[in-house]
Structures are given as C-alpha cells and as structure tokens.
C-alpha cells in the first residue's frame, strides 16, 4: 500500500527526479541507485546500495534494498546523524536500513497546499535522508535556533513518568548534533542471567523495530539508550520532526521502561523468565 489519505510519492515526482530517483512502473515506489548505506556489526563500512522511496500509511519511507548479514541491532547504531536505523528480526538473516519521515512533515511538504515551498522542503529532506544514509557527519550544517528547538519541546514533555519510574529526555543541541536522548537503563547488571539478558535484548529489539523514528541501543559502556537524531535536518523540517520525534520517543520510553526495569533487576525473581527463552 503506497497511498493513504491521498498522499503518495507521486506528489514529489519532480523532486525525486531531480535527486536521481526513477519511478518503478506505477507502483508508487521510486528507486535511487548506489547510495552508500551504513552497516552495523561486524564491519561498519558503508556499502553501496539502492535506496527506494515510497509513502506507506502516510509516512515517507526511504529504504535500502540490499539486505546485509544478520546484525546486532542493539550495538553500533546510536549516535549516527539522522533517522536511519537498521531493523530486523534477531533470528532473521536480513536486516534493513530504513529512514522514516512522519506524516506531519509530509503535510508541510505537500505541494498541493504549500506549492513550490513544499516541494523544496521535500527535496531538502530527501537530500538529507540520502546524505545521512552512510551514517557520516554532515559538513556545513548550521545549528538550529535554540528558541525554535525550545518552542517545539515544552519542558514538561521531556519528563516521562510511568508509575514510580521516571526518565528525563535530554535535548542535545550543539555544533553538528541535534538529538533527543533518553536513558532507559544506566547500566546492564553484570549478574543478569543469560535468559533475562535474552528477554531484555528481545524487548529492546522489538521496541527498536516497532517505534518509528526511535533508535534503541546499548552503548559501549552498557547503557541502554533510546534516541531520535535529527542532526542535519533542513531548518523548515525541524518543527514537525522535533514534535513528532518527541512524541515517538515518549511512546517508546513509556512502553518499554517498566518491563526494562523489571528484566534488568536481578533482585526480582521470576521463574517464567528463567525457564522460557524469548524464542520459545
């Protein structure tokens, strides 16, 4: 399904053509050859890949087509500029890099309502998507206005409370970096059993795959972090990206934090977790 709410990739056909995309028949899918796309483990060197753009359920989706070997989705993805993330099943031989653009952004970039300015915004946004596919820092990107960023992120929405559990989302807005980050766990306990570690990894992978825009991963010092990275985003795209990004991050944290806390608390005994593996 490539068309919902009368929004389809065809709206930006001219812009897509400018950027080197070509239509794949009447499917509503546009293909761009040979973009270097990031990889995670074991070798993080970006490799050439064809990238397709389509609109699915109101979201603009850039997707790399070549599927690499199984990757550890929880390692090596955090901190990359932009919205690309590699999604897939832990047991699958496939993992797919994907970059998702929210409906609020597509609405602002809709040339039927916004005219040429909308088309330009989509061109800049797609160019940002292609430029960040390799996961490399962007040269020449100007730090967004701090007042604009603050206006999109009310302080009360940066605190997530689920019962007795609290998390604070931090806004990182410094040269070369614009990201919302939230620590899910300060550190993975060393004494966590392999079964619990497996359940925790499965939970985090599922959250990473499920929640659009949000990357979830484990840092080298074993901190579990959820993040939305908008580094390099075009200035006119920032408002819808920041607002939707904050919502997405809040949803992800709210959905994961209690189960994450429980699984990582080795002082809490749960036989069901110990005798069953997440893969049955």
């Amino acid at each position, binding site marked *: 399904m490539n068309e919902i709410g009368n929004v389809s990739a065809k709206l930006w056909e001219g812009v897509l053509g400018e950027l080197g995309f070509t239509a794949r028949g009447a499917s509503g899918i546009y293909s761009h050859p040979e973009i270097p796309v990031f990889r995670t483990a074991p070798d993080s060197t970006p490799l050439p890949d064809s990238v397709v753009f389509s609109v699915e359920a109101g979201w603009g989706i850039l997707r790399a087509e070549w599927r690499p070997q199984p990757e550890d989705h929880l390692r090596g993805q955090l901190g990359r500029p932009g919205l690309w993330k590699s999604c897939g099943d832990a047991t699958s031989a496939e993992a797919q890099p994907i970059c998702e653009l929210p409906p609020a952004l597509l609405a602002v970039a809709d040339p039927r309502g916004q005219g040429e300015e909308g088309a330009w915004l989509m061109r800049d946004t797609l160019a940002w998507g292609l430029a960040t596919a390799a996961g490399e820092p962007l040269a020449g990107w100007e730090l967004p206005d701090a007042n604009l960023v603050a206006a999109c992120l009310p302080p009360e929405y940066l*605190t997530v409370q689920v019962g007795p*559990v609290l998390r*604070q989302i*931090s806004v990182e807005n410094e040269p070369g970096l614009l990201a919302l980050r*939230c*620590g899910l766990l*300060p550190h993975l306990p060393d004494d966590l059993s392999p079964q619990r570690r497996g359940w925790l990894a499965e939970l985090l992978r599922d959250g990473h795959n499920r929640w659009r825009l949000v990357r979830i991963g484990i840092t080298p010092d074993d901190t579990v972090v959820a993040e939305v990275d908008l580094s390099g985003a075009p200035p006119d795209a920032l408002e819808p990206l920041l607002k939707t990004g904050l919502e997405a991050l809040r949803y992800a944290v709210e959905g994961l934090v209690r189960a994450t806390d429980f699984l990582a608390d080795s002082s809490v005994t749960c036989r069901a977790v110990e005798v069953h593996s997440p893969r049955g």
Partner: protein
Amino acid sequence: MSENRAAVLAPADPVLDLLEFEATDVTGTHNVVARDVQSSLPAGAVASALAHRMSLPADVPWALRDERSSAFLDDGVAIGDQIETKARLTVVPKSHLG
C-alpha cells in the same frame, strides 16, 4: 513501621549525573532508597514518583522537603540543582489549612 527499600525511579541518560538519596513519608511509614536518579529530573516529578512508590494517595499533590535544611524543593527545578547525593528527603502533601 514498615520499610520499603528498593531501587526506585530513574536511570539515566549517560550524559547526565545520577543521584542517590533516601526518602520517607511524613509518618515515617515508608522508607525508600532512590538510586540512579537523573539529576536533571524536576523535583515535582520525583515527588510524584516517590509517592507512587510509597502507595500514597494519587489525588494529592506531593512535594519534597530536604531534612537537612527543612527547605521545600522547587517543583520545576532539577533535583540535582537542589540537593546533594545521599540527601535525606521527606515526601509531604501540599495542603492548605483553613
């Protein structure tokens, strides 16, 4: 008097400092050691989460008081800007008499 010692509240963005402190309710019935609390969390949210942990009524607004200074913490200000780690706090209802 019962005692409830548990790791409550929040871990933690790695770029932020973490706090540990002890909190009791006004009756001394509940006692909670809060570890890995992000210092950037607003004190009001921390009070609410502690009240939840202590099973205190949810329809009452709660505040935190530093036992050392007897000062109430400002709800909207980061808790790390108002207390030192290892502080002792009391969870108190916000109430008006008369």
